[in-house]
């Protein structure tokens, strides 16, 4: 028996078969139950663990349909429209799901109907039934009013009024019901009787394209997994080609025989259609995983979905041309991003600001796209660079000393250097609409060894800092 806390009292949250045979019921105060059966074994409720388990079962159910929704605390809703024929009919599908879950050690009740609410009501009271479209009102009407899962006062009110089944309740005038219980209840009854339909929302967005392969015997070897991915990628690319599209994000889903599901996603900088390139991305990703893909007793279903797509024109294979090179470069970026993470492979992007340190940004190369504005050089012809090649992310403080002979020394990182050339200042006012920082003066300096630095002086505090180094 499982006990949970509700407010200040401990209530019975769930029971096994033996306990319910003893006359205990869900919602009973724990003290009462203990008084009735002193030898009761009580386990504390662990709601997060339950939710996690439910999510895992939902993951497992993904193999039957991509449209799985959670119905907490202990229900799942599967939209199996158009799926039944893949499993020899809807009754066979339902029986199979129930049998498989039972085999995994769960107590299961399930039913199939045209609306989610009807199916839920039927699952509670007529386990294993499949209701053909149109027969819902006949099947649901005789069910007790509790099957609607209303709140406690509403159920109680129906009982007091002598309306014990859904059918009886539905027989009353709608205006009366609305006046007493509100329009939501009427809508619920309508949905349960399939007179209206309430949509359910899936846990995951439905992929645009998918291809999958079932295995009679679970597979575990890397070779077969790779070949399967290649075959699936081939199937996917045919589908994509028909509609002139390419995949920007691909997800491979591995269903393990013991119910664990592993999802691995890769991204492409431009819509991708070549099966080999897709598989190569997955290969990179799999090789770089911190926790490698563990086949356990093997995978019995492997699925490949494209859940973000883009238009892709058919392009001729050109070697050594600019377009061909660009394409190859994009694929390289995708591979590196798959292996090392997309925030590790970057491209420069010009920014529209006069603050020298912010004149460019490093953006993920996969998503950067072409620059909106051209790069603008600051130096004139025959002039030396006016911006440093290496820039410190955090400017470092330095001390500037003036010796007796009038020459400047700079003290930075525990060394003192004699400055032979100082050029500046280049005065830059901060953008008042962004920050209230004071105006800054930038200087180029060269030390006795020819090393050139870019210094900055805060006009307000007079603090000097090293911004970067010139080549």
């Amino acid at each position: 028996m499982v006990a949970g806390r509700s407010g200040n009292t401990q209530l019975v949250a769930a029971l096994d078969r033996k306990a319910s045979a003893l006359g205990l019921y869900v919602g009973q105060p724990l003290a009462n139950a203990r008084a009735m059966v002193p030898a009761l074994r009580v386990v504390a409720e662990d709601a997060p663990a339950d939710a996690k388990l439910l999510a895992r079962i939902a993951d497992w159910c993904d193999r039957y349909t991509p449209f799985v929704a959670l119905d907490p605390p202990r229900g799942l809703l599967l939209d199996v429209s158009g799926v039944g024929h893949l499993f020899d009919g809807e009754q066979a599908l339902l029986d199979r799901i129930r049998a498989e879950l039972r085999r995994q050690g769960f107590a299961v009740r399930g039913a199939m109907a045209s609306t989610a609410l009807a199916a839920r009501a039927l699952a509670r009271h007529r386990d294993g039934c499949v209701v053909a479209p149109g027969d819902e009102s006949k099947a649901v009407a005789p069910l007790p009013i509790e099957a609607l899962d209303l709140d406690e006062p509403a159920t109680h009110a129906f009982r007091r009024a002598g309306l014990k089944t859904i059918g009886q309740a539905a027989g009353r005038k709608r205006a009366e019901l609305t006046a007493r219980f509100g329009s939501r209840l009427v809508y619920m009854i309508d949905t349960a009787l399939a007179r209206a339909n309430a949509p359910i929302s899936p846990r995951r967005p439905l992929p645009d394209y998918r291809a999958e392969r079932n295995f009679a015997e679970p597979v575990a070897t890397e070779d077969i997994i790779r070949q399967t991915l290649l075959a699936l990628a081939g199937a996917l690319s045919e589908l994509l080609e028909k509609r002139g599209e390419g995949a920007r994000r691909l997800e491979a889903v591995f269903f393990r025989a013991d119910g664990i599901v592993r999802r691995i996603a890769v991204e492409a900088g431009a819509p991708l259609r070549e099966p080999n390139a897709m598989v190569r991305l997955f290969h990179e990703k799999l090789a770089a995983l911190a926790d490698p893909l563990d086949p356990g007793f093997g995978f019995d279903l492997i699925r490949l979905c494209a859940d973000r797509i883009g238009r892709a024109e058919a392009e001729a294979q050109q070697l050594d041309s600019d377009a061909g090179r660009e394409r190859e470069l994009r694929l390289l970026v995708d591979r590196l991003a798959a292996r090392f993470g997309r925030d590790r492979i970057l491209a420069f992007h010009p920014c529209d600001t006069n603050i020298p340190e912010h004149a460019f940004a490093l953006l993920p190369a996969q998503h950067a796209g072409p620059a909106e504005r051209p790069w603008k050089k600051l130096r004139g012809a025959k002039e030396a660079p006016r911006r440093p090649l290496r820039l410190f992310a955090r400017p470092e403080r330095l001390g500037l000393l003036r010796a007796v002979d009038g020459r400047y020394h700079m003290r930075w990182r525990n060394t003192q250097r004699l400055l032979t050339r100082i050029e500046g200042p280049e005065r830059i006012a901060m953008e008042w609409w962004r920050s209230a920082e004071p105006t800054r003066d930038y200087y180029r300096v060269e030390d006795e060894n020819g090393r050139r630095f870019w210094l900055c002086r805060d006009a307000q505090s007079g603090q000097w800092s090293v911004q970067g180094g010139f080549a």
Partner: protein
Amino acid sequence: MTANIALKHLETVLNPRRRAEETPVPLGHAGADAVLGGGLKRAALHEVFAPAGHESAATGFAACLAARLAANRSMLWIRQDYCALEFGELAATGLLELGLAPARVLVMRAAQAEDGLRAALEALRCRALGAVVIELCGNPKDLDLTASRRLTLAAEENGVAALMLRFTARIEPGSAQTRWRVRAAPSPDEEENWGQPRIEAELLRNRQGGTGCWVMEWSCDDGIFRDPATDRGAVVSAAGDRPAPAALAKERRTAAA
């Protein structure tokens, strides 16, 4: 073995791209080019070491070499996170001021040297790239003779230049074609203006010939190194930014005629 070499030679003669890869890329500094036998080999590994405190100068030298070797193609700059923290991040504005195109530079941030080397191998196999620069700090244990040999082979096979930029590193045996030690050089006293970037490049190892030490100046406008002692910007030297196969195309045309 002989047949293999003959085949390789034949491929070099017949394939215009191969031929372009085999032509050395002149640096523009007459003394250095003479010692290098006309210039740097494109399809090879070159190492640039920076003595402590001269990291920016060495970075500039490596960037300019990479730009010359890449010849209008993109380059990938792989750098260890630690290098950026300690010596500063590569700046697009700085590249631009040196006369290089930031749009053709991709940057990869590698957490460790191992990641960087692996990414470099992968990138060297991509013929669309012109050069790969690997910026490493110290002497990582993953960079042994085998790793350097692997980089060399990948560079040779695909015609992509590999440049290794080493900070605070001890020189160890490796399979590099050339090895340089680069420090900043002081501007001449007589010059009033703030001059072009000037470095002192010491060629420590050259598989094809002698070694030497030169002061070079990078001409930001022409994209080429100069010898400040001889050509003080007097004449315009060979354009640096010209695509390599131009001469070959002309040759092919005459052959067709």
